[in-house]
């Protein structure tokens, strides 16, 4: 079995990559994808901890895995709404570069 630390480092890296992308990428669709990466890093955590606890306590602990299924569904819904929003933004601004969308400000 792969040690838990490896998984943790992996998911943390994934999370950081996603966060970095959200903070820096110009294209809103890429930003959206980066958010998905962040959510997925959490999903990896959930699945990994689920199996870890199952081993630790000797009984199968399904809640992490169930949680993952739900969060994947939620992420899908979020993408759908997100793309719709980007579409309507594109109609108004003729761009989806996030730094160009800034008439609302201080």
């Amino acid at each position, binding site marked *: 079995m792969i040690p838990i630390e490896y998984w943790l480092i992996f998911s943390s890296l994934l999370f950081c990559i996603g*966060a970095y992308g*959200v*903070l*820096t990428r*110009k294209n809103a669709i890429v*930003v959206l994808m980066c958010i998905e990466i962040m959510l997925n890093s959490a999903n990896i955590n959930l699945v990994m901890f689920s199996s870890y606890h199952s081993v630790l306590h000797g009984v199968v602990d399904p809640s992490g895995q169930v949680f993952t299924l739900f969060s994947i569904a939620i992420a899908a819904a979020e993408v759908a709404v997100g793309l719709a929003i980007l579409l309507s933004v594109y109609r108004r601004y003729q761009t989806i570069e*996030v*730094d160009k*969308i*800034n008439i609302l*400000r*201080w």
Partner: protein
Amino acid sequence: MLEYAWMIPVFPFVAFLLISLLPKRTLSWEDGAGYAIGGAAGALVLSVLVIGDVLAGNTMVGDGPKFNWLVIANIEVTFGIWVDQLTAVMLLVVAVVGTLVVIYSGGYMHEEGAGRRRYYAEIMLFISVMYGLVISDNYLQMFIFWELVGLCSYLLIGFWYEKPSAASAAKRAFIVTRVGDIMFMAGIIILFKYVGALDFAHLFGEEGVAAVPNDMMILATALIFGGAIGKSAQFPLHEWLPDAMEGPTTVSALIHAATMVKAGVYLTARSYPLLVQAPETLLFVAAIGGVTALIAATVALVATDIKRVLAYSTISQLGYMTLALGAGGYLVVYADTAGGYSAALFHLMNHAFFKALLFLCAGSVIHAVGTNDMRLMGGLGKKMRITSLTMLVGAIAIAGVPPFSGFWSKDEVLAAVYSAGEFDSLFFLLWAMGIATAFMTAFYMFRMWFMTFAGEPRSDYHAHESPKLMTVPLMILAVLAMSSGFALFVGDGFGYFAGESVAELFGGHHHESAADILAHIFGDPLTYVSLILATMGILLAYKIYYLPGFDRSVFARGVAGKLQRALENRWYISQFYDDFAVKVVYALSLVADAFDRYVIDGMVNGFAFLGARSGGLLRRAQSGNVQRYAVIIVVGLCLLLIFMLYVAPGGRW
């Protein structure tokens, strides 16, 4: 009768509801003045009955009917009533002055037209909440009414809100008094923290007083007095009161001379059981009072707006009351007598009558002439005989000429301050300031009277005496201003009566006969000092402003000129607030805004730069707005993590 005291505020409140809710045509005479007079008179009758009961020796202190407003665990927040001698004095003032002012308004506000309805509604609401304030039996209830009184004052100062000066004066009054209110609230919170209750019965009881540590008692009482500083326009928060004269004169008379501004004095007097635990606060109270009395009197010397003269005079007289309360506390603590306390209340009552009289007379003059500027008046005495005579009565009363009311109470106040000097020599200085104020008071009052009524008209106007509706209240008030001083000799005497409300704080409470009091007053050489000074003040005003041939331009030259300009600019205090204090708040806001905009954003950019060491990223971080928000989230998160791990008390590692 006492258990019905809660109904006193109900009368004006019902009038307020009727005036504001009934259809316009049913308001009939003067757009609701009838209802207003009815409401005020109803409260007056009930107040008189209650006062009669108190005179008969009954009080209701902590054992009155209550209703629970809120119960949380073991803490009860109740609404109740508290009627003692102090309450009775305030009730008398509010009831009499309130009713007379409302009657007077019937004539004064006649030309106001549609605004009258709003006027009467607001004034009824004011009277109602003022009664509520006076009969409150706990600090929280008092604070609620305190705020409502402030709100009414705000509305009434801004009554002519189309005038920018009125609107800004209203705002100023509201904000400045709010500064005091916050202190008041903070004081209440401290008391609540230690005692766990806010009603007077608990707070003033032995257990309540003992529960508060000494240094906290000083802080709490000083903060509560801070509320009084705001409301009673004491230095350094006094500048709102002259500006408040932008409201109708009736409002100035009722709220800003006779009743609301007394609320601060009332609060201080009400808190006496706490104040006497903190002599440091008492000294502070007295010093503030003395300084206020002197500063306000000096500014009144040069004011040319008749209402401003009266406003500064009000501040000055309120300073007297505060001074007397501070000195009185010392007397309670060290000399076991309530002399200063009752002197303050005595002056409070007398002042309410003669100052309301003066204001209403001023209103009558303004009504006739159409200006507030005394330089444009003159010679009105012949045309407005009743007004000029009643105003003369008021001026004599406030100047302290026996046997009018002002003489007796001012003498009591100064005597109390002088005898407190035995325990702290600072009181001698304050006494000297009081004496100087007495001299100036006599001077500026008669300056005002001569400038208004004597000599020849200095501008073109067609003055005529005001209608009966206005002159009758003037005459009633004039009689009161002449006679209210004799309360000192009625029955057990005012001093004994007022002292009753704090009698349990000290041991020796004995009453003096009228002859004793008289012998006391006229046997004291200091009485003659103040009498001579008052006379000199009047004579000086007579010489300068009545007799021809005095060249007043000497005031404009040299040192005198500089002094005069300083006085005309109100010692530059008002300017200080405008230039400095108000701007500081706004500047703080701008700084916070700029901080968010530049410092945090700058930090963000810096972080981005450090993180990636790339110029392109820096550029992007500057231009992308939403992402900047996300970056701030991350930065906040990191700071939080560092804080929790290393800085916070629970932090490990």
